[in-house]
C-alpha cells in the first residue's frame, strides 16, 4: 500500500514521459493518475487503525546491509494527513495545469507526477538515507518546473532556490552520515536518540531553509512569484510541509536534549518570522507577495508548535500543516486565476472584481477568511492549539502569536479588498469572466476539505498521535 502510493505517480510519470501522447491525452492521463492516487490515499485513511496508532503499512527490504540502510517505509497517524494533503493539492495542481495548458505538456505533467511520488516518499520513508533520497528527488523537478516554465525572472529565482536548498541538503547529508555511522544504523525507527548539537543543527538548518524560517527565506519571494501558480501552490502548500515534518519526525524526536537547549533561539527565529512575514505581507505590492510572506509567517507558527513539544502544540501544528497547505494552495491558484484575467498581480491595478463575478468573490472571500483564521475555521483551531501549547513554554511567545492574529486580519482583508472591492481597477476589463467551471472544480474541493475540517478539526487532532498524547509519542520516538 505504501509502496503503491510512491510508485503509482512515479510509474505514471514514466508513462507520460515515454509514450508519444498529445497534450490532451497526457494531461488526462496525469489527472487520472493523480485522482487514482487520491483514491489510494482514501483507502489508506480508511484502513489505517487510528485506535492502535504507531507505524502501519510498513515494508522493509534490505538495501545496504553493512551500513544498516534499508528500503523501509510506513505511515504514522500524522503522516496519513500529510500524505492526504499532498495527493489532494497535487491533484488540484495537475488539474489546473491541464486546464491552463502548459507548453510541453508531457514533460510538465511527468514532472508534476514525479514530484508527487517524491513528496509522498518523504512522508513515508523510515530510513534516513531513503528520506534524504526522496527529499532530493523532490527538489529536482521543482528546479526544472521553476526554471523552465516560470515567469520572466525565473532564472534568477531558480539559481537562488538551488543554492539555498543545496546548502541545506548538503548539511543534512553530512548530518545523516555522521548520525547514521555513529549509531550504526540509518533506520529511523530503530536509531536511538542523540545529544549531538552539531548533527541536530545540520538537520535544523536544512529544514529551516526548506520551510523556510526567517532569515533563511531569501529564495522564497522570487520562487513563489516567478513559478507558475500551481507550482507556487505546491511549493508553499506541500513542499514546505516536508520541512515541518522533518522538524517533527527527526529534529525534536531524535534530539530531545538539543531541542531543549536550542528551543529559545529557534522559537525566537520562528516568532520573528511570524511577525516579520505578517508585516511584509501587509505591505507587499502584489497578490503573490502577500500569500508568499503569509506563508513565511505561517511556517514560523507551525515551527513554534512543533518546538513547543507538548500535546497542544504538536496536535495544533499537524492540523495547521494541513490547513495552511490547503489554504495557501487555494490562494496561489486563485492568484493565478486572477492574473490570467488581468495579466498582472499588482494590487494597485486590481479592484472591483466582485461586481458581476459572484463565484470568484465567494471563493476568494472564503479562502481569505480561513487564511486569517477567523474563529470557527479549522485554521483557527490549529492556531489556537499551537498558541495554547506555546503559551506553556512562555507567555511571550503566545503574545507574539496574538499580535500576528491581528496582523493576519490586516493583510488578508487588504488583499481581499484590493482584488474584489472599490472601483474597478485599470487592469480589470469588463470581459474578465467569473470563475469557469473547471476553475471552480479545482478550488472548491480544496475549500470543501477546509470547511469539513472546520466542522471537525478533531478529525486530525485526535487521530495524529497514539492515544492523542503527542508529547509521549515524541518522547518514546513513536514506538
Amino acid at each position, binding site marked *: 500500500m505504501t509502496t503503491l502510493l510512491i510508485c503509482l505517480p512515479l510509474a505514471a510519470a514514466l508513462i507520460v514521459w515515454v509514450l508519444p501522447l498529445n497534450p490532451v491525452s497526457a494531461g488526462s492521463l496525469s489527472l487520472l493518475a493523480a485522482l487514482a492516487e487520491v483514491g489510494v490515499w482514501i483507502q489508506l485513511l480508511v484502513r489505517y487503525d487510528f485506535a492502535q496508532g504507531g507505524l502501519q503499512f510498513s515494508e522493509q527490504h534490505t538495501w545496504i546491509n553493512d551500513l544498516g540502510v534499508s528500503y523501509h517505509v510506513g505511515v504514522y497517524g500524522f503522516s496519513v494527513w500529510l500524505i492526504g494533503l499532498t495527493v489532494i493539492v497535487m491533484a488540484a495542481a495537475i488539474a489546473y495545469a491541464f486546464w491552463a495548458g502548459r507548453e510541453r505538456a508531457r514533460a510538465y505533467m511527468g514532472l508534476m507526477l514525479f514530484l508527487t511520488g517524491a513528496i509522498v516518499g518523504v512522508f513515508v520513508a523510515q530510513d534516513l538515507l531513503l528520506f534524504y533520497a526522496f527529499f532530493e528527488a523532490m527538489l529536482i523537478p521543482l528546479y526544472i518546473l521553476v526554471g523552465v516554465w516560470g515567469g520572466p525572472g525565473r532564472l*534568477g529565482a531558480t539559481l537562488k532556490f538551488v543554492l539555498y536548498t543545496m546548502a541545506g541538503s548538503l548539511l543534512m547529508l553530512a548530518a545523516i552520515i555522521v548520525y547514521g555511522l555513529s549509531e550504526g544504523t540509518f533506520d529511523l525507527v530503530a536509531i536511538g536518540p542523540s545529544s549531538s548539537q552539531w548533527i541536530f543543527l545540520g538537520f535544523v538548518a536544512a529544514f529551516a531553509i526548506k520551510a523556510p524560517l526567517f532569515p533563511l527565506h531569501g529564495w522564497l519571494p522570487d520562487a513563489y512569484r516567478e513559478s507558475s501558480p500551481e507550482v507556487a501552490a505546491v511549493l508553499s502548500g506541500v513542499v514546505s510541509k516536508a520541512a515541518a515534518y522533518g522538524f517533527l519526525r527527526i529534529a525534536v524526536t531524535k534530539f530531545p536534549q538539543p531541542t531543549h537547549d536550542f528551543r529559545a533561539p529557534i522559537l525566537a527565529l520562528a516568532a520573528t518570522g511570524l511577525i516579520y512575514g505578517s*508585516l511584509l505581507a501587509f*505591505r507587499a505590492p502584489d497578490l503573490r507577495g502577500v500569500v508568499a510572506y503569509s506563508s513565511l509567517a505561517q511556517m514560523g507558527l507551525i515551527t513554534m508548535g512543533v518546538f513547543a513539544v*507538548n500535546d497542544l502544540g504538536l496536535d495544533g501544528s499537524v492540523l495547521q500543516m494541513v490547513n495552511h497547505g490547503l489554504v495557501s494552495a487555494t490562494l496561489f491558484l486563485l492568484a493565478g486565476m486572477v492574473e490570467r484575467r488581468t495579466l498582472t498581480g499588482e494590487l494597485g491595478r486590481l479592484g*472591483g472584481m466582485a461586481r458581476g463575478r459572484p463565484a470568484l468573490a465567494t471563493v476568494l472571500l472564503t479562502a481569505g477568511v480561513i487564511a486569517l483564521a477567523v474563529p470557527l475555521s479549522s485554521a483557527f483551531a490549529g492556531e489556537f492549539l499551537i498558541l*495554547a501549547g506555546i503559551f506553556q513554554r512562555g*507567555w511571550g511567545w503566545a503574545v507574539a502569536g496574538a*499580535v500576528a492574529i491581528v496582523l493576519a486580519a*490586516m493583510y488578508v*482583508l487588504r488583499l481581499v479588498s484590493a482584488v474584489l472591492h472599490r472601483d474597478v481597477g485599470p487592469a480589470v476589463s469588463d470581459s474578465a469572466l467569473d470563475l469557469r467551471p473547471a476553475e471552480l472544480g479545482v478550488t472548491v474541493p480544496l475549500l470543501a476539505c477546509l470547511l469539513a475540517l472546520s466542522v471537525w478539526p478533531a478529525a486530525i487532532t485526535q487521530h495524529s498521535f497514539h492515544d492523542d498524547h503527542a508529547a509521549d509519542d515524541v518522547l518514546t520516538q513513536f514506538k
Partner: protein
Amino acid sequence: MVWGAWICLLSPLAASCLITLGGTRVSRRTAGWLATSACFVAFAGAVASFVGLLTHSASDRQFISTAWTWISGGSYQSGLSVLIDPLSTFMMLVVAGVGALIVWYSIGYMDGDDEERRYFAYMALFVFSMLLLVQAGNLILLLAGWGMVGLSSYLLIGFWHQRPSAIAAAKKAFVMNAIGDATMALAFFLLIQQGNSLEFGVLGGEFSSTVANLVALGLLGGAVAKSAQIPLHTWLPDAMEGPTPVSALIHAATMVTAGVYLIVRTHAIFEQAPKVADLAAGLGAATLLVAGLIALVQVDIKRVIAYSTMSQIGYMFLGAGVGSYPNAMFHLMTHAFFKALLFMTAGIVIHALVDEQDIRKMGGLRQLAPKTYWAFLVGSLALVGIFPFAGFFSKDSILAAAMAKGGVYGYVLWGIGLAGTFLTGLYTFRLLFIVFWGEPSAFVREHFHPLGRDVVAFSLAIPVGVLGVLSVIGGWIQFSPWWHPVETWLRTVAEPIVSPSSSQEWTSIALSLLLGLTGIGVAWAVYGAHRVAVPRVVWAQRTLEHKFYFDEAYDALFYAPSVALAKFLRRGVEQPLIADSGRDLGDDTRDLGGLVARAQTGLVRTYALAIASSVAVLAIVFVIVK
C-alpha cells in the same frame, strides 16, 4: 428542548448556505423570505427551549448537548456543544426574535438592490453566528461565535463594497475586533494552562488573584472591543456605512451587546477579580458620558443613534461591572427593542429622503410622515427612560445598583449614570426636534416621497409596529421595586451581588426621570421652539466633533508606526539583506566556479595532494566527532 436549541442554531445557517449555493436559481424575493422564515424558525426553536426549561424546576435548568468533540490537544478537549440554560434561552429569544423582525424589515428596505441575495445570505449567517455565540456550550465555541459575528459584521458593513468608505469602515471594525479576539484567546490559553479545560465551569475554580485578574482582563478586552466601549469604540460610528437594517440588527440590538453577555456569562471570574469588574463598570461609565457628549454634535442621523447605542451599552457595562447581572441583561433586552425601532424608523426616513442622512437638511417630517414620527417618538421616549416606556424600567435599576454598590466609586458611577440620562434626553430629542418638527425644509419638500401600499411598505411597517409595541410594553415585565421575574429567571445562572434597597430604587427612579425630562426640556428650548441662542464654545465643540481625537491617537500610536515598521523592514531588511543575498551568493558561486576551474591543472601531483589532504581532514573530523 434540545432539538429546539439545535434547530434554532442551525436553521439560519441552512438558509445562508441555500442562498449562497442556489445563486441565481433563488429569486431575490425568495432569498429574503427564506432568510426571514429561517429566523422565525429559529425563534420557534428558542421558544421551544424556553418552554422546555420552564417545565423543569429552577435548580435543574442547565442542559448541554454535545454533537462531537470539536477540538482536542492531549487531555484538553472541547465539544461542539450547545448550552440550554436560562441565560442562553433569554438571549436566544432576543436574538432570534428581534433578528427575525429586522430581516423581515430588510425585505422592504433592500428591495431593488442589485445584490439582495448576498445581503440575505450574510444576514442569515450573522443570525447563525450570534446564536452560536449565545448558545455555545464552552468558551472556545463562544469565541468561535464571537469571531463569526465579527466576520458577518465585516461583510455587512462593507456590503456596498464599491464605496471606499464602507470598505475602510468594515476593515476597521474587523481589525479592532480581532484585537479583542486576541486578548480573549490569551485569557483562554491561561485557563487551559491552569485548568486544562474551557468549559464554563472552569471559571468558578480557585485561581490566584494574578491569574483571575489576567483572565478577566483578557475577557474584558474582548467585551470592550465587541461592545464598542472606550478605548476600542471608534469602529462603531464608522460602521454606520452599512445598510440601515444591519445597523439595527448588529450595531444596536444584538452583536454590540455581546460584551455584556460575555461578562454576565463569565461573571464567576470577574467576581474573583473585583478590580477588573470595577474597571468594566468604569469603562462603561466613561463611555456613556463621552458617547452622550459626542452624540450632541453629530449631524448624521445614524451616527447620533450609534453614539447613543455606545452610551446605552455603557449603562449595561456599568450594571454588569457592579454585579447587577439580571438588570444588565434586562436593559440589553429593552434596548434591543427600542434601539432597533429607532434605527428602523430612521431607515424609513432615509428611504423616504433618497438616502440622505444629514439632519441639517431635514425638518418638518412630522407633517409628512406622521406614523413614522409616532414610532420615532415612542423609541425616543423609551430611550430616555420616560414612564411607562421600556427604558424606564430597565435603566433606573442599573443606577440603583450602582448606588447599592456604595462607596465613593459606587456614587461616582451613579452620578455619571444620572448625568448620562440628562444627556440622553438632550441628544435624543435634539434629533427628534430637528428631524420632525418645524416646517419641512426645502430639501425635504423636493425629495420626500411617501411609502406606497405594497409589500415593500408592509414589510417595513409591520416589524416597526411590533417593535413599537414592545418598546411600550416590553419593560413592564420587571419593575424592580415591586416585581422581578427577569431576575428570578436568571438567578440560577447569574446571581446578582448587589441588592438595592427600596429607597435607593425610588431615588434613582425619581432623579433619572427628572433629569431625562430636563434634557428633553432643554432640547425643546434649543431646537424645538428655536428660542434660545446657545453660547459657542469653540474648543469644546471641536473636541467633540473630532470625537475626542481617538482616531487620530490610534493612527499616530499604532497604525502609522506599524506601517513605518513594515516599510522599513521591506526596504531596509528584506531587499538589501535577504533578497539580494541570494543574488550575491549566485555571483560568488560563479566566481568560485572560476577558481575551481583553475585548480584543474591536469597535473597528477596536484590531484594527489588534494586527495591526501582531504582524507586527512576527513580523518580529523571523524576523530573529533567520535
